[in-house]
């Protein structure tokens, strides 16, 4: 196939191909459902999903669910990120602290967070606390160990230069280590935010009054596959927006690292 240069330039833009990929699946979905080959109960069409969504929106359920889920994620993740930063830095800079904590964290990290749900419900009941705790447990150890690794990779020349320029103690941490690891820390948060987002849905599937995960499990009970599809799409979109937000933050705050 011979492509004209402008066309080639158009298709070499990463966004164009990305949007094209999504459109392909969407069109295939639309074709399959509108052909009548598949039972509508199994695979609802785009229109049915859209209607289910706008129905939820008009009832105010959609916004309430999204707010509930996002709030849990942010609360749990903020505690996790806030604690992981000092502890990760401490582990990365102090060998004794690292030897003390690393085996413990490596062990807990491999315990699947959803397996803690029964315990959390026994300890904290069915309110917000167990869900927030689940997100904390599921992300804290990954956050900490990844930040520790980032600190270990700070080139010794950068620290030693600061020492020979008369720096000592805290300023080394705030003016050398912190700026150097900032891009990796933001990237760590971005990656682990995805699992926080996974876990909130899992927690809501088990026990919740509202939330995007709760809505899906309710829809299952009434065989409302259109609502399940809508829920999945919303969950994906919110996750994507959070991811893009982190990328934007990183480009703005750490332009030197790009």
């Amino acid at each position, binding site marked *: 196939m011979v492509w004209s240069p402008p066309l080639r330039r158009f298709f070499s833009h990463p966004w164009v191909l990305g949007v094209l990929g999504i459109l392909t699946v969407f069109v295939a979905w639309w074709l399959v459902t509108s052909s009548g080959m598949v039972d509508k109960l199994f695979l609802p069409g785009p229109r049915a999903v859209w209607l289910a969504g706008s129905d939820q929106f008009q009832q105010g359920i959609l916004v309430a669910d999204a707010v509930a889920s996002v709030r849990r994620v942010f609360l749990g993740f903020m505690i996790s990120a806030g604690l992981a930063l000092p502890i990760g830095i401490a582990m990365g800079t102090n060998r004794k602290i690292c030897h003390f904590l690393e085996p413990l964290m490596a062990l807990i990290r491999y315990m699947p967070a959803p397996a803690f749900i029964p315990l959390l419900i026994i300890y904290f009941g069915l309110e917000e606390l167990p869900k927030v705790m689940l997100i904390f447990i599921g992300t804290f150890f990954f956050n900490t160990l990844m930040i520790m690794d980032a600190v270990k990779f700070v080139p010794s*020349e950068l620290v*030693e230069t600061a*020492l*020979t*320029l008369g720096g000592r103690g805290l300023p080394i941490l705030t003016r*050398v280590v912190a700026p150097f690891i900032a891009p990796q820390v933001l990237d760590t948060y971005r990656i682990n935010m995805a699992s926080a987002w996974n876990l909130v849905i899992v927690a809501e599937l088990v026990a919740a009054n509202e939330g995007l995960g709760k809505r899906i499990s309710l829809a299952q009970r009434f065989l409302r596959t259109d609502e399940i599809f809508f829920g999945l799409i919303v969950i994906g979109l919110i996750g994507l927006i959070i991811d893009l937000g982190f990328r934007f933050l990183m480009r703005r705050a750490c332009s*030197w690292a790009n």
Partner: protein
Amino acid sequence: MHLQVSQVSKSFGDGRDCKLVLQDISFELVSGQFMALVGSSGSGKSTVMRLIAGLEQPSEGTIHLDGELVQRPGSDRGMVFQKYSLYPWLTAAQNVAFGLSLQGRGKAEIRERTSYFLDVVGLADAARLLPRELSGGMQQRVAIARALATEPKVLLLDEPFGALDLQIRESMQEFLQDLWKTTGLTALLITHDIEEALLLAGTVHIMAPRPGRIVHSVDVRLDRSDLRHLRVSQPFLELREELAGRLRSLDGSLL
């Protein structure tokens, strides 16, 4: 300024794994002097520098700067590493200002000194550029300006041009020679390149490896008014060949 290194030995590890890297190193450095330590890899020359900088402690012997025992790093001993030592998130000017602001100097003073030292190394136009936008030679000049800005008593240069291309290396050697002449700084240069040592240093110590020790010292008396000419002059080449022969015999005895 008087730097005195007295009978310094350094070993790493303990027990059976103990490895002696430096044995009985002694020399003195006074104001305005340019000294070089030359040796192949494994001769411990970088360790000498790290000991003087206070980044490591000698196992035996002492290092005194103006009568005071060196126990930790300080801004009276400025250091330039081989590479990767500029802060990549700071501009050239901010890198030069870094030590000054660590010392808590006033804003006006920092600005003034920063632009002065950027000018000294010929990079006034590059003040706002990030390290990644600078060539390797420019980066090292920023590192030198940064080390000079805090007015160290002695400048420690650890293979400062080791990572640069040959051509840039030569122009950087000329730059450093000019800088030494104009500012009257005191410098200790670590290098594996005999030519570099002879071009720049008034005193050259040759180091032998395993364990690192000084085996030969030369006072270099050459006309340094034109480095380009000096590089190819007969006395320079003879001296270079003599010292290269010594280094070769040191390496040869190990094989």
